[in-house]
């Protein structure tokens, strides 16, 4: 890894955090900082991506991430186009590769893809000239989520290095966890993941994290606590017996915040299940930055769109 001195963005795609250097991560966060102000103007638009075409290809339903990308694209004056699984060729049995090649024929500059299968954005990136942005692939990565989380943490704590970050929930099925682990450990934070043993993937400690099996242990001394959505429908009833029992053991309540840092912040990538992984008193409480995360998501995605489109301009 090169030291984080002036870094130039040279990647055509943003597929994950795993392959980024600390310098590249900082570059995105710094660029996001300069776009934040656009969202606070009365006229929330800059001409930066005028004439660029961005395709939002959402094979899996998403409200937050998709709206965030759309707003980011519009604020940058890009032309954008939305595909979703229902109503697109995908539901008619066309393969991902064919869908991609057809889109390619319309010469978009960037493609934002959300897909239920890990590696789908990488498959697209191998086939396409357009830059590909991963907006979440299976349980693999969700790089812009980790970037907006880091941006939010940095806004509150002024740094990432040295912080203790606890991530609690279904670690096995979470792409948010993986991207966050990569990003936070690269930037010098200490990460503890916690959850039921039945939701802890094999070998997670090899990613450079501590593993805790009680909420109290995870929360102790934490500067940041991220709660993850629990979806009983996805992992089935083999992993946890009931939502009620999960909340009793791992649900975050005010009382269970005791032991965390004084100025702890509580985060959640959404969508949130009140009373499942997090009590309303915490979600709406003084330590919560959950809605700020959503706001910063737009700035971070503007930064990513901007940096990736620049690469294409220069190499064209």
């Amino acid at each position, binding site marked *: 890894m090169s030291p984080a001195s002036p870094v130039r963005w040279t990647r055509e795609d943003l597929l994950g955090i*795993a392959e980024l250097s600390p310098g590249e991560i900082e570059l995105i966060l710094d660029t996001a900082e300069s776009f934040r102000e656009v969202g606070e103007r009365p006229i929330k638009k800059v001409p930066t991506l005028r004439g660029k075409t961005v395709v939002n290809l959402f094979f899996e339903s998403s409200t937050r991430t998709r709206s965030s990308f759309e707003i980011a694209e519009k604020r940058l004056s890009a032309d954008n186009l939305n595909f979703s699984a229902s109503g697109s060729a995908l539901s008619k049995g066309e*393969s*991902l*590769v064919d869908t991609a090649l057809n889109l390619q024929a319309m010469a978009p500059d960037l493609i934002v893809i959300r*897909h239920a*299968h*890990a*590696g*789908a954005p*990488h*498959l697209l990136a*191998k086939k396409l000239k357009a830059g590909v942005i991963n907006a979440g*692939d*299976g*349980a*693999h*990565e969700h790089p812009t989520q980790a970037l907006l989380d880091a941006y939010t943490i940095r806004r509150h704590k002024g740094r990432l290095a040295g912080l203790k970050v606890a991530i609690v929930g279904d670690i*096995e099925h979470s*792409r948010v966890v*993986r991207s966050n682990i990569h990003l936070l450990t690269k930037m010098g934070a200490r990460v503890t993941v916690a959850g039921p043993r039945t939701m802890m*993937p*094999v*070998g*997670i400690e*090899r*990613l450079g994290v501590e593993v805790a099996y009680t909420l109290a242990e995870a929360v102790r001394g934490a500067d940041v606590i991220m709660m993850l959505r629990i979806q009983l429908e996805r992992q089935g009833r083999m992993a946890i017996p009931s939502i009620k029992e999960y909340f009793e053991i791992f649900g975050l309540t005010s009382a269970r915040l005791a032991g965390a840092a004084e100025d702890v912040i509580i985060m959640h990538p959404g969508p949130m299940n009140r009373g499942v992984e997090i009590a309303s008193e915490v979600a709406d409480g003084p330590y919560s930055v959950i809605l700020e995360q959503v706001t910063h998501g737009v700035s971070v995605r503007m930064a990513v769109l901007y940096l990736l489109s620049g690469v294409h301009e220069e190499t064209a």
Partner: protein
Amino acid sequence: MPVTTANAAGPGAPSGRLLIANGRLIDPSQGIDGAHDLLIEDGLVAEVVERTDREGREGRNDRDGGGRRREGGGGRAGREGRERRDVTVLDAAGLVVAPGLIDMHVHLREPGQEYKETVATGTMAAAAGGFTAVACMANTEPVNDNRSVTEHILAEARRHGYARVHPIGAVSKQLAGQELAEIGEMVRAGAVAVSDDGRPVMNAELMRRALLYARHFDVPVIQHAEDLDLSGKGVMHEGEWSTRLGLAGIPGAAEDVMVARDLLLLEDTGGRYHVAHLSTARSLELVRRARRQELPVTCEVTPHHLVLTDEEVARTVFSTQCKMKPPLRSERDRRALLAGLADGTVDAIASDHAPHHADEKDVEFDLAPFGILGLETTLGLCLDRLVRPGVISLSRLVELLSTGPARVLNLPGGTLRPGSPADVTLFDPEGEATVKAAAFLSRSRNTPFDGWVLKGRPVATLVGGRRIELPRRAAAGGAAGA
């Protein structure tokens, strides 16, 4: 002999005599490794003759690699021709002469999935890869769960085969794991083993009955050892790399619990039990221990499990050419398998040649079918990655690819003893070749080894004393004597 092949040509017409001269003959069944010539008469091995000169051992740089033919009595062959009138000589200088290689685990896809492979293209791939015989799994469409399908496969092999074909019948009707298939009729028609490969026999009671019933016909029951509940929706080995990639994992335990269960059943039933594509350290240890108890268990491993690990899925960024069952395992498992080759626990190397159309593989990792080709890469991989680094000797490799599988399946091949069918493989252990999927004779192209440069390559095969002539490949060197 169940099959003769249609595509044999060249020297060694059934009534003639053929001398494979100047090679290094390796036959583990007779404990031979050295400068011997091989005399073939009427399609059978007539004699193995030790040479006094050591010339063949050292080898000459035989560039065209195909051996040379000298017609006995013809102008060029005057000298040797004096004593050996009407003997055709195949010069194997620089080459290893081995009993014909046998791939005991392939999918020929015929009947039913001829767009992936056929008996013709699959056996062509076999011959190109140095194999003189293959055993083909029953998961065709219709399933090979009755005599008429077995007979159909054998008839196709007789008409279009470039290698011997030994069908493996299904354990259960429709591979459904409910009722026994007509094992006796299939064996009488030529099946050499039974297996529901592609699927495990999940039902313990059915496995118990299959082991008992197969004893009547003295065929092994070959298990694709996978507990389907444990493997679930998994698409790669469960471990650090599946965690990093966010892909659903198949734990090693999915194989181990099945092997353990079957070995317990085998203690009670007797019969013969064979573990297909064994892939984990623990399963291997189970087999090793069962051997010590003298249980009748054998096992095979694939070249890809010996050469690659789960990390390859990450290194290739989700390449579906790294997706197969069992999945590429951990480095620890791989090392255990290498040890199992060396210490004799493993009986055979088998490729699990599993052709799939390029379109089927060009999809998201989760959606791609399991399986890769093997027939045209196995020998090169084994020579380059097992023999060259000294994991095993050349002689042990020949055992694993020929003598071993012949013993497991109780086939007449796997030996060059006088009187045996003259199924012979000639290969060049030093010849370098680049794997070119586009030039494969298989109908499919799904390999993770495309572009690999391997030292060691097949040169020729003989089946029943006849040299197999393959259609020309763009990339292949012209075979001499063609």
